[in-house]
């Protein structure tokens, strides 16, 4: 405890405790607020909760925020018994401008992820950010989002975030830190800071970069190292090889007719993933004017990209290089040693690529060697794709280079004692650094170690100083998108836990006068734009979320003539293990995010674990079943991990997912899964030879879908484009559509609107964004692994995943399943208390406060979209998480049923606005949360009885069908059948490509 705080004689713990005890719910915040002013209380807090102490030493505008919360919580939808104790209502002292109490506000901001920005529109209800959506004006978002952006708002309120500056684990203050640091820097002046190192993640923020550069000017000998565990080193090295310099490569999937992906999961990886998904899915839809693209994918473990492929070739990662060589050689790239190996489909694929020269696209993943990337550049050049579907720009990264190498040298320097000051700005190197670097022990040799991070994690544990980092929704800053477009990061709330942004910290370290992120950011951009135009540009940037004219120019680097490509690897089928970022917790940074932990991972539908993927045949040969624990031995480093048999996985290969096995992630993320970093070395960061041994142990794995065969039912209807264009009925032939008039019951009068939804299975890529969006919008609780194991997950919208064909090379289908809002809903009929009824506009309403919980409705729901609160899942009074609640949606209590409502709160809001303006609701005015989030535009919602509406148009398509419509439930949610665009020249082995 900080001795500088004056001891107060009249310090009465008991009194304060009782005072606190008497407060409850919303009041608690205000009471903290009142008490906070008294030194006594600060003292008390340091006694009781050291980590929260700093949360109170705050500016007056923080008070306003607290007050906002109090007021809004009074409105928040938290069911209490109706005769509650007299409730306090707390207005402002001075109401902020343009804030209408009870009305949400929207702000443009951007989320940095692995350094790159995604433009966002954040919803703020009474001062609390509650929902994240994409910014249509932002090139990397186009209005859509992904799971990380959607879930980031939960991180903001995470009660496990670090809440105080700590020194050697004890609470200190930021000023104390600055004093200590400046002392260090003073002494460092003598040797130009030769012993100062700054370690960041990938940085594209111009502000932060300029800050760091100023440091480097002051201390010429200091060094700046960037490190991302899931790095693009191979891409950079590839462009070095091909062009002799660093260039970023962009792709135009909307222009590509034929795509060959070599181990590239472009739909869920990379800074442009959302935009790419949009462009790619545009070309999946078959309309009159657009022809459908064709996707070939060669990859070791099935990804959602592979699942979308028309032809997918499962193969060990180390063999894909040889494919690249073969393709390159056939496309006329010179000077390549030909690999041995026969690929029956290869010629057909190459022919297809050549046929579409100029409109084809070859792409390789970051896990492929520099050689492969160099080759790909040449191939795209040979196919005249460069400049059309494949483009180059200068690197967006501020500090490009070989991250792995620079981290390695840093470790050596640290070990050799040539580093005195290590400032770690974000990231968690102790956890993520290659195992062979032994970063931790090296770091221990550094005299002054500081870590800035959202969490008090593995790294901060080993640092002298830990500074809580400000969440991007809490701090001003900027960030560049994949194409260089800069966005201003606008906070929606004052730092909950008194965090600092990296820029603020560096600026303070430099002793600058500008301390607040706001001033720093504005100052930088003022310099960039010049005083005259600044204010207009700034206003524009903050409103639209994009700084004008910051997009990078296209470059046309020349391919080097003498590209040196290494020799092909000899064909082998020894066991290898490959590393992938986890689909939901990524490199581990989201480990404490409950939404992402419980989000079923694509294809396996696993939650709360990172089981190793393995092919059915390999599993068979090793006598392994799901949940069997194997020991992987990779160069002497051993790891025990449970396996999950993954259809379509390459044989003799094990896929390990990074990001688990955290020790200091937080209450949610600690000790889940196994830490794959522990056997990941710098020389084999993506692929390593390994041996596998069955341990005989077993580990329970919580998957939300235990049965992935369709059992010759046609939940997902499919056809080939060829067949479909011949006869559009081909998708529905299996069952004749049910006649609308076929009913025993007299027709009910139609309402003013008839809400309905159409989901295009052809464009849906199964990215899960809709699922998290739904969770955020509708206050859906998480239930934890044990409950998921029991089959009690709560997602209102699930993405059913089916496999068809040979287990070693199946087709995969995604089917998002929300409530069908049946016109003849079987669930309503059996509810004894009329808790679920039908609205005049066709909604299947669920009235939580009337539900007694017989669960009969769920039994009688053929789609099983209803979810039940078996326990009290939603947090009441669980600290900050309550602030996250969407006040427009009731928080459900124990013992009630819940389900998708078509976001009825949004419908009602639209109704009220339209009524007030005395006009009908416009088509597209009501968008459901899932629809807004969807990067593929696969979900369309609207009034089906208005022939002009988008949804009506889609439902008129021949591909349209209702799930289980033979039951005459009359689902309002319908699907557009999935089409595949096969290459007739390729023999169909089983069902796979």
């Amino acid at each position, binding site marked *: 405890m900080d001795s500088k705080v004056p001891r107060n004689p009249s310090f009465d713990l008991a009194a304060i405790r009782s005072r606190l005890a008497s407060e409850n719910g919303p009041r608690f915040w205000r009471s903290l607020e009142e008490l906070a002013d008294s030194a006594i209380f600060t003292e008390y807090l340091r006694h009781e909760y050291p980590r929260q102490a700093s949360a109170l030493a705050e500016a007056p505008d923080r008070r306003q925020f607290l007050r906002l919360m109090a007021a809004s919580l009074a409105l928040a939808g938290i069911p209490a018994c109706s005769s509650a104790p007299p409730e306090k209502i707390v207005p402002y002292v001075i109401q902020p401008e343009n804030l209408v109490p009870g009305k949400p506000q929207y702000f443009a901001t951007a989320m940095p992820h692995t350094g790159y920005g995604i433009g966002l529109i954040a919803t703020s209800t009474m001062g609390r950010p509650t929902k994240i959506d994409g910014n249509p004006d932002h090139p990397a978002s186009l209005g859509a989002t992904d799971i990380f952006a959607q879930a980031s708002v939960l991180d903001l309120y995470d009660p496990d975030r670090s809440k105080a500056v700590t020194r050697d684990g004890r609470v200190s203050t930021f000023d104390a830190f600055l004093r200590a640091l400046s002392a260090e820097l003073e002494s460092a002046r003598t040797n130009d800071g030769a012993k100062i190192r700054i370690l960041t993640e990938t940085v594209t923020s111009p502000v932060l970069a300029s800050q760091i550069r100023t440091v480097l000017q002051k201390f010429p000998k200091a060094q700046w190292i960037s490190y991302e565990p899931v790095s693009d080193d191979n891409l950079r090295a590839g462009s070095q090889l091909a062009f002799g310099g660093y260039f970023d490569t962009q792709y135009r999937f909307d222009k590509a007719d034929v795509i060959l992906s070599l181990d590239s999961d472009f739909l869920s990886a990379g800074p442009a993933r959302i935009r790419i998904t949009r462009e790619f899915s545009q070309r999946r839809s078959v309309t009159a004017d657009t022809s459908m693209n064709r996707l070939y994918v060669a990859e070791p473990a099935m990804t959602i990209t592979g699942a979308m492929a028309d032809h997918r070739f499962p193969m060990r990662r180390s063999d894909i290089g040889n494919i690249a060589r073969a393709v390159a050689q056939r496309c006329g790239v010179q000077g390549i040693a030909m690999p041995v190996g026969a690929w029956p489909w290869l010629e057909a694929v190459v022919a297809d690529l050549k046929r579409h020269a100029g409109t084809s696209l070859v792409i390789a993943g970051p896990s492929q060697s520099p050689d492969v990337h160099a080759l790909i550049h040449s191939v795209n050049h040979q196919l005249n794709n460069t400049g059309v579907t494949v483009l180059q720009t200068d690197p967006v990264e501020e500090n490009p280079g070989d991250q792995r190498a620079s981290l390695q040298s840093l470790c050596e320097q640290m070990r050799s004692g040539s580093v005195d000051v290590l400032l770690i700005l974000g990231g968690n190197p102790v956890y993520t650094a290659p195992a062979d670097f032994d970063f931790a022990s090296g770091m221990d040799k550094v005299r002054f170690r500081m870590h800035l991070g959202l969490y008090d994690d593995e790294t901060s544990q080993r640092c002298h100083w830990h500074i809580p980092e400000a969440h991007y929704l809490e701090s001003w800053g900027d960030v560049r998108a994949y194409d260089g477009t800069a966005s201003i990061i606008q906070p929606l709330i004052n730092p909950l836990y008194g965090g600092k942004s990296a820029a603020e910290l560096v600026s303070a370290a430099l002793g600058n006068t500008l301390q607040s992120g706001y001033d720093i950011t504005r100052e930088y951009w003022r310099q960039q734009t010049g005083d005259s135009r600044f204010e207009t540009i700034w206003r524009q940037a903050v409103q639209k979320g994009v700084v004008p004219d910051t997009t990078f120019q296209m470059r046309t680097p020349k391919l080097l003539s003498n590209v040196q490509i290494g020799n092909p690897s000899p064909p082998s089928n020894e066991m290898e293990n490959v590393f992938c970022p986890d689909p939901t917790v990524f490199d581990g940074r989201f480990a404490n995010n409950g939404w992402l932990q419980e989000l079923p991972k694509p294809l396996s539908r696993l939650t709360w674990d990172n089981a190793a993927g393995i092919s059915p045949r390999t599993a068979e040969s090793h006598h392994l079943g799901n949940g069997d624990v194997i020991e992987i031995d990779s160069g002497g480093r051993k790891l025990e991990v449970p396996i999950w048999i993954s259809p379509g996985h390459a044989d003799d290969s094990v896929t390990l997912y990074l990001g688990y096995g955290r020790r200091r992630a937080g209450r949610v993320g600690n000790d889940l899964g196994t830490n794959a970093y522990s056997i990941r070395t710098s020389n084999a960061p993506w692929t390593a030879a390994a041996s596998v041994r069955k341990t005989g142990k077993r580990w329970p794995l919580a998957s939300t879908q235990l049965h992935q065969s369709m059992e010759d039912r046609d939940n997902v209807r499919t056809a080939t484009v060829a067949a479909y264009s011949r006869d559009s009925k081909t998708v529905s032939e299996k069952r004749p559509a049910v006649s609308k008039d076929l009913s025993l019951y007299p027709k*009910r009068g139609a309402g003013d609107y008839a809400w309905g939804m159409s989901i295009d299975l052809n464009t849906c890529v199964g990215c899960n964004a809709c699922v998290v969006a739904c969770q955020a919008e509708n206050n859906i609780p998480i239930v934890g692994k044990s409950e998921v194991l029991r089959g009690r997950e709560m997602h209102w919208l699930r993405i059913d995943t089916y496999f068809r064909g040979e287990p070693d090379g199946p087709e995969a289908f995604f089917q998002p399943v929300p409530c069908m809002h049946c016109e003849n809903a079987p669930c309503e009929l059996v509810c004894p208390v009329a808790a679920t009824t039908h609205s005049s506009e066709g909604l299947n309403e669920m009235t939580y406060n009337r539900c007694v919980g017989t669960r009969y409705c769920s039994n009688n729901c053929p789609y099983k979209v209803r979810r039940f609160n078996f326990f009290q899942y939603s947090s009441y009074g669980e600290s900050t998480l309550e602030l996250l609640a969407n006040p427009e949606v009731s928080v459900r209590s124990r013992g009630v049923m819940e389900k998708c409502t078509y976001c009825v709160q949004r419908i009602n809001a639209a109704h009220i606005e339209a009524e007030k303006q005395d006009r009908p609701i416009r088509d597209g005015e009501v968008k459901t949360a899932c629809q807004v989030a969807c990067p593929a535009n696969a979900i369309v919602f609207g009034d089906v009885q208005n022939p002009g509406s988008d949804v009506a148009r889609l439902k008129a398509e021949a591909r349209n069908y209702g799930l289980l419509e033979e039951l005459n439930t009359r689902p309002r949610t319908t699907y557009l059948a999935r089409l595949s665009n096969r290459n007739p020249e390729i023999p169909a082995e089983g069902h796979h490509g």
Partner: protein
Amino acid sequence: MRTPALYGIVAEFNHPEEVVAAARAARTRGYRFMDAYTPFPVEGLAEELGFRFNWLPAIVLAGGVVGCVGGFALQYYASVISYPLNIGGRPNNSWPAFIPVTFELTILVAALFAALGMLALNRLPMPHHPLFNEPRFALASRNRFFICIEARDPRFDPDAVHDLLEGLSPIGVYEIEQSR
């Protein structure tokens, strides 16, 4: 005038036939206010004692009608008049779905009418009764058969009744005190 303290005079028999005969005899003598007490129902005895019309079936029928009409009315009011709701696209008046409840209520009310009706007609419960003053009467619920000619009978004359009952060779004849 006889003493008002007398409730009636009972004779005790061994066999159902005897008590039936006794009833017939008493009836032929013109006695009307009398009753017989037996450990189990004895066929024809009630008629001999002048039991005429049995109202119970009518009462039960009434109960059934009330339950039936009331039951359907309740459901119709709830789902058509009071708060009509669209339930799974079914019509507000889904009368086929209302049948089970209507039926159950019919049975319920009818059954209650039957039980309560029986008690009411029998003036039960009546835990206190002059007959209980006579210790021997306890056997009426075991193995003996009693006949009682009540004092309120206009033709009641203790001696005559004594003669009559003694003449039927009973196990005994007892005078029952009116309890105060």
